[in-house]
């Protein structure tokens, strides 16, 4: 039958020639190949990335560890509406809503806020649907951070202590609404 793809190889089992049976020519061929690689290591640029000093660049669309954003005044944006938890296909997000007391206006932007907000990083598939669902632009997946490995399973449940971004702007994630347009352009060129 004729081959459809014309890529079929006919396998013939010919008896080996003397040179093939003696093994040695084949062995020397193999040795010469590895020797070429040996000298290539000295001449060509090495492709190894020496990790702690060098790091591989993240992809521009990389979605990493979550962050709960603050607004320009440093107040938490999250209003605990629960849309992110509904949107989450892995059901990784849980939260408890609470009412803002008097005198807490500088802490929480909305009248209702998340008393606790937990994301289970073992369940999370980092799809980014919470980010899209959020009406207050509070939850973001950072482009440059990952959930590091830990020894215990419960350490992977991230609470507000680890999710809410720091008050000082320097420590904040580079991705998010507080970027000025110039900063955003700079980041885009940097990531591209």
């Amino acid at each position, binding site marked *: 039958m004729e081959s459809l793809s014309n890529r079929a190889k006919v396998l013939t089992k010919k008896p080996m020639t003397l040179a093939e049976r003696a093994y040695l020519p084949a*062995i020397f061929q193999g*040795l010469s190949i*590895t*020797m070429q*690689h*040996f000298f290539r*290591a000295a001449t060509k640029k*090495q*492709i*190894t990335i020496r990790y702690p000093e060098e790091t591989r660049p993240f992809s521009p669309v990389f979605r990493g560890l979550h962050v709960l954003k603050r607004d320009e005044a440093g107040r938490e944006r999250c209003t605990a509406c629960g849309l992110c938890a509904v949107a989450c296909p892995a059901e990784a997000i849980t939260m408890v809503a609470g009412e803002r007391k008097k005198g807490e206006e500088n802490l929480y932007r909305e009248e209702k806020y998340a008393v606790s907000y937990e994301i289970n990083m073992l369940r999370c598939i980092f799809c980014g649907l919470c980010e899209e669902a959020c009406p207050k632009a509070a939850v973001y997946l950072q482009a440059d951070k990952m959930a590091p490995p830990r020894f215990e399973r419960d350490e992977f449940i991230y609470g507000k202590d680890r999710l809410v971004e720091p008050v000082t702007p320097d420590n904040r994630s580079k991705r998010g609404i507080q970027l000025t347009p110039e900063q955003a352009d700079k980041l885009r060129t940097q990531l591209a």
Partner: protein
Amino acid sequence: MTLPALGWQGLVVLVVFGVSLLIATYSTYAERVIAAFLQDRVGPDRAGPFGLLQPLADAVKLFTKEEFFPAGANRALFVFGPCLAMTTALMSSAVIPFGNVLQFGETAIHLQGIEINVGMLYVFGMVSLGVYGIMIGGWASNNKFSLLGAIRAASQNISYELAMGLALIAVLMISGTLSLREITFQQSSAAPFVWQDIFNWNVMKQPLGFVIFIVCAFAETNRTPFDLPECETELIGGYHTEYSSMKMGLYLFAEYINVFVASAVMSVIYFGGFNFPFQYDLRDWLVSAQGLELVTASNIITILGLVGLFGKIFGFIFFFMWVRWTLPRFRYDQLMRLGWTILIPLAIFNIMLTGGLITFGVIK
């Protein structure tokens, strides 16, 4: 032999042991660097400049690891196995002539641990004893994979010893002596220099014997492509599956010392030992043109010969590693077929060929 001379020779033995250990230590580093280069990688480069302190780091790691005894193991033999492997590996380095005589006034130092007139048989005997370390360790582990590795090591070593011995017999027919020093002297180039003697080395007279010998050396040292006793894909770790910490380290060390000794023996028997071309011309030139004393010139030649021998040895060690990272492992039936149906008949043919050539006066 007077006592001072004995003292010097004792020192030489100690130095030889120390050098063997040092070379084995750095063989682990060399193995990893060569493997990396052959595979377009970087290799160990963190510990010290170019990773040169890597063996130290490995030693610290091995010493501080947990000493583990498997349940049901024969504890005494479990410890005895790696010790025996190390001892037999080290002992064979004692008779190898690393250099000629160094003359300091009255004292003459032979750069050889001990000279015995059955040196070749001694090395051969120590190599054949090396398998006990593996067998005892493998059996005492009380683990079927270890036992299988031990059994494989035993049958492999016995099978390849035969071909190795037969390859050596052809050399003995030419040399007529079992002493390694005598064999080395016979391979020295004639003085004054004539070009027929350019390489008066046994490998020129025994190319087939050398190929057989080097294949058997690979099998005897359990190096790839004949590392069936520790074949990871089938036997986890083979005979050292159950070993950890420095007992494991002793097994690994013993393998590298065996590689060193095998390289040294090949250099001595087939590649002229500490001889190098033009050595007598160089000595005469040093005496006549540079005005050195004959003794000083001879000492310089001896040291150059020592360096040359170590160059040959390192070349062989490199070859061992080069082959390891090139060739895949043999299957066990292929290993046995190669040993019994190819190498032994070839070795016997080589003996007959050598006998014929000697009879008709082609080689002497």
